[in-house]
């Protein structure tokens, strides 16, 4: 009888990619993937540590697995496992703690465990890119890891510590990975990494890599996920003319205040960010720009926060992911003076969340009367199809007998509140 395995992934798309690949490998080894709420022989928790909230969530999930596992094992990996390895190794709910560098060893660790072998850290395989393309994943879109690590050392960020230095995956590996998943039938490829804009492999930079990806034949589209706002050129912006490249980027603003950005040691100014956003809007009206904003960075004054609000409002982001600043041990910001009171951080977070709802609605309204190419992800209970258009906005197509993982060109007829503002599409004959 095959063993059962359950996964829980916290945090970023890079973690999602890595979990997908691990799950695929377990499946090849005859494991049956079950829901995390079910009883399993192996629980794998791919953790996140980007904020204190992420740590809390990761701990909660570890405890859940500990309560369910009975004779099974719990393997904790990911950024929190890297950041708090020694501490987690003392946790009775956890059998194995595997840091990011050795994440690809998770399959062999489980196998060795059930074979009665003694597994020690020294035997773990150190490999950042040895993730095989996953044929079946938890998603209808395929995540492709092109890069790992970050050298930016933003003062608030723990990622350089837990993901290590920036390393780029060989060009041919990336392209082969895409060819493979396209062959598997995936229609949307999401480029992932910690700092993908800094991709550099033997003279090929991110822009050149994307150009090569776009040359791959097949009916699919590419989406750039989270990217840092530095180093864009006009030729990079021109890439979005290509029909395979989705007109959407999640570009992390973090703050609209020049002073806060400097203290965060970000590599751009608010002014340059705004110019970049304006340029994208001018070139591609409706271009979907989503972002991250940190509220309550040490020393952030009311005026500086207001600068962020003003800027976010004037750009009109499709969505803002709001983070309350939290101390990450060992970062430079931990030692900065004037930490902001929790209550005030909550207030500022709420202001940004409300603003995000407003700008998202305005942005989505612009698509009524326009067309979208929708990749259907699920068929709803009423038989209608739901998916995402190229701008990464949810669309419900009120037609029956449509297929998942299929592109449909639709006219957007209106916008309805279905959990969130959702575009309604009518098939173009």
């Amino acid at each position, binding site marked *: 009888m095959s063993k059962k395995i359950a996964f829980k992934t916290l945090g970023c798309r890079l973690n999602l990619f890595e979990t997908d690949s691990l799950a695929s490998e377990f499946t090849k080894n005859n494991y049956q993937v079950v829901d995390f709420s079910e009883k399993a022989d192996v629980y794998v928790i791919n953790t996140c540590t980007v904020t204190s909230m992420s740590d809390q969530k990761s701990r909660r999930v570890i405890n859940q697995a500990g309560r369910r596992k009975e004779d099974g094992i719990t393997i904790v990996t990911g950024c929190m496992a890297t950041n708090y390895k020694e501490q987690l190794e003392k946790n009775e709910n956890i059998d194995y703690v595997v840091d990011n560098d050795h994440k690809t060893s998770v399959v062999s660790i489980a196998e060795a465990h059930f074979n009665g072998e003694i597994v020690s850290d020294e035997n773990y395989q150190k490999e950042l890119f040895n993730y095989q393309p996953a044929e079946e994943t938890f998603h209808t879109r395929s995540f492709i890891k092109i890069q790992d690590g970050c*050298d930016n050392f933003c003062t608030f960020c723990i990622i350089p510590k837990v993901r290590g230095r920036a390393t780029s995956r060989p060009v041919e590996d990336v392209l082969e990975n895409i060819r493979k998943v396209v062959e598997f039938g995936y229609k949307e490829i999401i480029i992932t990494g910690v700092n993908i804009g800094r991709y550099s492999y033997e003279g090929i930079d991110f822009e050149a890599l994307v150009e090569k990806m776009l040359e791959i034949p097949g009916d699919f589209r590419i989406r750039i996920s989270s990217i840092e706002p530095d180093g864009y050129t006009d030729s990079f912006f021109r890439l979005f003319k290509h029909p395979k490249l989705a007109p959407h980027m999640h570009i992390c603003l973090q703050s609209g205040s020049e002073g806060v950005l*400097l203290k965060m040691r970000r590599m751009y100014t608010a002014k340059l960010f705004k110019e970049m956003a304006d340029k994208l809007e001018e070139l591609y009206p409706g271009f979907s720009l989503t972002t991250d904003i940190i509220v309550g960075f040490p020393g952030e004054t009311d005026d500086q926060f207001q600068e962020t609000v003003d800027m976010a409002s004037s750009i009109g982001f499709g969505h803002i992911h709001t983070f309350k600043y939290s101390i990450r041990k060992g970062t430079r910001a931990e030692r900065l003076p004037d930490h902001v009171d929790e209550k005030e951080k909550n207030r500022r977070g709420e202001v940004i969340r409300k603003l995000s709802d407003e700008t998202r609605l305005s942005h989505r309204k612009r698509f009524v009367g326009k067309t979208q190419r929708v990749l259907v992800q699920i068929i709803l209970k009423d038989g209608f199809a739901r998916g995402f258009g190229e701008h990464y906005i949810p669309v419900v197509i009120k037609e029956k007998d449509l297929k998942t993982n299929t592109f449909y060109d639709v006219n957007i007829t209106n916008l309805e509140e279905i959990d969130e503002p959702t575009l309604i599409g009518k098939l173009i004959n």
Partner: protein
Amino acid sequence: MQTSGLHKLIKVINLTDSTYILQIEKNGMQFEAGQHILLGKENDPDQREYSIYSGINDEHLEVLIKEVTDGSVSKHLKNLEPGELLNVEGPLGFFGLNKEKIKSGKFLFVASGTGIAPFHSMIKSYPGLDYKILHGIRTCNEAYGKEDYSKESYLRCASREADCDFEGRVTDYIIQNQFDKDTICYFCGNFKMIKEAMDLLEKKGIPGTQLHAEVYF
């Protein structure tokens, strides 16, 4: 190519009571002028980022360090003996000269205190560079490595001493002077100085794309 490993300390060169240069074996490390390294004592998890002070072709690796009174790294590094091992990771960072502009560009380097380090590296690495340094210091003895700069290109802006080249802060100097609009400006040092200096130069017509900063805390 980034590396992480142990480098032997060659010597500690004290410049003032609180500022010193650590001269370290290079172990073949190649870097771009302006980059930094992560540095700490062997077996000490505490590491700090320090800009490389030496030139790209120098025999040894050097960093310029200001001792922080309550610091957990800079104080200990100062007391190391030659031959002791340091954990060095790098080179890191993107604060560097645009290679296409090295021969033809006109550079303004604005530094406060030990923020002069990356500019020292740039100037030693590229002897023909067309540059001017505005070095914000409190007293004249903080003009670290002044003998390495041409006299006409190096300006000490001292806030607490009248006998240096300019009495006042670098920002006072910027307010009182004009700069060509094609000047490429680099800033390194404390946050407040950088913020003010960038604002001033932008108001004087230098485009934001020509302003590059590395903040020290």
